[in-house]
């Protein structure tokens, strides 16, 4: 099963249309899309505007491929569920987001095991087919659902009125 999601905040119709077209061309594959507030409604795959958290997590755990925008919610939850991920960044020039930070996020996360980022909807459709046939290896070990111990310590110290020691060289 392919689970595709544009996150929860802004429409991303270019992405939804591409996944829907892929579903049209691959009728034997099961596809489900979370489309958020988009205008375009898929005709070749079932969809939801926004799934309840438990169902979202279940689909993420059970899918063979998670296709999403380059949102941190999608990336973090994909890592937590150990799903192989195929991501397409939103383009600010097409008014798909309010800033270009998804391009920056993409640069930072490109190359992580089990995660592939593409730049066009054509590449997205090609990779959907490829990754179902030849899945990526997802990084070994369990991915924690918690922040780094340093950050947790520092936040706890600060909230209680203390002064955490920063990690930066310069301070």
């Amino acid at each position, binding site marked *: 099963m392919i689970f595709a999601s544009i*996150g*929860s*905040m*802004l429409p991303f119709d270019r992405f939804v249309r591409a996944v829907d077209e892929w579903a049209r061309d691959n009728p034997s594959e099961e596809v489900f899309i979370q489309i958020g507030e988009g205008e375009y409604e898929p005709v070749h795959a079932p969809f939801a505007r*926004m799934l*309840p*958290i*438990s169902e979202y997590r279940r689909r993420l755990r059970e899918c063979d491929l998670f296709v999403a925008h380059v*949102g*941190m*919610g*999608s*990336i*973090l*939850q994909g890592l937590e569920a150990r799903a192989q991920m195929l991501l397409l960044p939103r383009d600010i020039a097409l008014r798909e987001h*309010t*800033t270009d*930070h*998804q391009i*920056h*996020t993409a*640069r*930072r996360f490109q190359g992580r095991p089990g995660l592939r980022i593409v730049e066009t909807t054509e590449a997205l459709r090609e990779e959907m087919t490829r990754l179902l046939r030849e899945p990526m290896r997802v990084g070994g070990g369990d991915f924690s*659902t*918690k*922040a*780094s*111990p*340093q*950050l*947790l*310590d*520092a*936040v*706890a110290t*600060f*909230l*209680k*009125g203390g002064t*955490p020691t*920063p*990690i*930066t*060289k*310069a*301070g």
Partner: protein
Amino acid sequence: MAKRPPRLLAVASGGGHWVQLLRLRDAFEGFETVYVSMFENYAEAVPGARLYTIPDASRFDKLSFLKVGLKALRIMAKERPKAIVTTGSAPMLGFILLGRMMGARTLWVDSIANAERMSSSGRLARRLAHRTVSQWPEVAEAEGVQYWGSVL
């Protein structure tokens, strides 16, 4: 009667901001944590805790800004938190500002999505919150804030 634990307001917009906030939960130990976000169904993720929702004001217009401000004011007046922590985004600045005025300790953790520069709301937070941190050491250094680690 046993002494009540101090109250913490943990606030974040929907999506990635909220997921990052949840990854900080262990740091909230010792507090009675009250959450604020944008979707009712997030309550499922924080069983036993109060969750308030505010309207999505990511596409800023003056009216939604005002609505968020009024809702924030009501929540703050009711909960009177001792500390406030947020992972963004912009609408949550209202809580930082109100918290500051009401004597709460305030922390802005800039989203890990801001990998090359801090968000514009993070830059505002730098002036409003008691402490603002970035989750990328290079960004922290360039923006003159601290780096404490990341939610990863």
